[in-house]
């Protein structure tokens, strides 16, 4: 029987920076830019976490919670390089590696003892050579292994022999992949612990969660028979992106250019998740942080950048830009899987060959390998993704 080990770096970016600059160790420390920058915290050291600072929080908020916070700008090249070294250690010791993200990955072994010995060796090598710590979780499937690695952070090692008992005791929100919205939905049904999912009548669960009910039920038994870790994420209800301008602006050309970029980005991600939607929402945040949204319902389901741009521009043209804009966002909601009800959709159109070619170029060479000339207006094309759920 295969055993899986999830290896997860502890506060990866912050740990790498602290290894470079050990003199910051006694201070609360975060990676993410200065107080006045508009960035968010990418990683917070364990000392910073004592002040309530978490990844994803705005730097402004982080400095409000801890005025003595030391922050450094993220150096992604450096983290990618260190990540490569880490996973080469894992591969050398375990003979295999399945990289999940820049700071976490899995390996498998033929027995529990092998997995345990390899995990200890990997942890030691990472600590000695990379000068950072990691936590490892070992179980008979990836889902439980990933949950186990979070048990004793930092520098933890957790072995779960009995996944059934282990997961049964968990609250639903503690299960990897069960998000806030699903938790809320489960709580409304009176389900708070994973054990309760086992006992809940399946037909009622199906009524509320459709095919996702089967995944929830499997998880409740600590099983990963359909590789649920990759399927467990909440059902997508909308796909959206926002972008904060480097400088607030009222310039129509710049704002339209940004709409073009956002449309491309949202479309790319919708295609990645194989969904299309029929409601477009435009979000505008002014320089004084006042924010408003306006929606437009479309008669057919859309996912192409041209369609998303067309409808977001219709919304944009219907509003009066009253003051300099700080942030623009587009989201497409009421989504469904592409292919659903195709035969009944009289509005659906065949994708033109040029769109197929553009998609193929992006799949092969990356999202920004090809773009509309109007998108060139915006130099900083980093947009933030948002995936809203049930």
């Amino acid at each position, binding site marked *: 029987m295969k055993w899986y080990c999830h290896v997860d770096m502890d506060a990866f970016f912050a740990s*790498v920076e602290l*290894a*470079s*600059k*050990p*003199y*910051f160790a006694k*201070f609360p420390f975060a990676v993410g830019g200065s107080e006045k920058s508009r960035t968010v915290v990418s990683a917070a050291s364990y000392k910073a976490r004592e002040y309530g600072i978490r990844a994803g929080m705005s730097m402004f908020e982080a400095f409000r919670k801890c005025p003595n916070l*030391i922050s450094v700008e993220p150096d992604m*090249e*450096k983290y990618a*390089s*260190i990540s490569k*070294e880490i996973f080469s250690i894992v591969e050398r010791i375990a003979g295999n590696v399945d990289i999940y993200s820049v700071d976490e990955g899995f390996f498998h072994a033929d027995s529990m003892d092998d997995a345990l010995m390899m995990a200890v060796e990997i942890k030691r090598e990472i600590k000695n050579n990379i*000068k950072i710590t990691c936590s490892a979780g070992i179980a008979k499937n990836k889902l439980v292994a990933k949950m186990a690695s979070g048990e004793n952070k930092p520098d933890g090692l957790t072995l779960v022999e009995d996944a059934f008992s282990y997961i049964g005791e968990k609250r639903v929100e503690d299960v990897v992949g069960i998000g806030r919205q699903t938790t809320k939905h489960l709580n409304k049904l009176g389900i708070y612990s994973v054990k309760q999912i086992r006992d809940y009548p399946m037909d009622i669960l199906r009524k509320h969660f459709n095919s996702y009910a089967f995944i929830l039920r499997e998880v409740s038994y600590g099983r990963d028979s359909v590789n649920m870790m990759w399927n467990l994420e909440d059902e997508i209800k909308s796909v959206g992106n926002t972008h904060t301008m480097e400088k607030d602006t009222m310039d129509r050309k710049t704002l339209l250019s940004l709409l073009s970029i956002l449309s491309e980005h949202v479309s790319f991600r919708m295609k990645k998740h194989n969904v299309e939607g029929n409601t477009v929402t435009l979000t505008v945040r002014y320089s004084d942080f006042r924010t408003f949204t306006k929606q437009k319902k479309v008669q057919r389901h859309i996912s192409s950048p041209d369609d998303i741009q067309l409808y977001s521009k219709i919304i944009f043209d219907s509003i009066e830009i009253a003051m300099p804009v700080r942030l623009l966002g587009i989201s497409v909601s009421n989504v469904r899987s592409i292919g659903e009800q195709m035969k009944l959709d009289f509005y659906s159109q065949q994708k033109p060959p040029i769109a197929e070619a553009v998609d193929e170029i992006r799949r092969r060479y990356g999202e920004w390998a090809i773009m509309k000339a109007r998108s060139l207006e915006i130099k900083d094309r980093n947009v933030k993704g948002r995936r809203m759920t049930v």
Partner: protein
Amino acid sequence: MKEPLYVITLFSDGKIKPIYFIWNNRRLKIENITYNWRTVDENGINQHFSVISGSFYYHLLFVTSMSRWYLTEVESTLA
């Protein structure tokens, strides 16, 4: 910041170890190499070293293809 720099370097066993460097007409002894990593760009492999000398932190960059050293960051360790 990317300032060319003279660095007295030990090349041994396929490894590179900066020992001293000359900056602002002063010879500074590297007391501790706290971290090192590699990146790749159009010039090939770059080797980065985080080092401490006295009460200052320095980020040294060695561009392998040109065998040149640069100083890219300096900050006080007395936070």
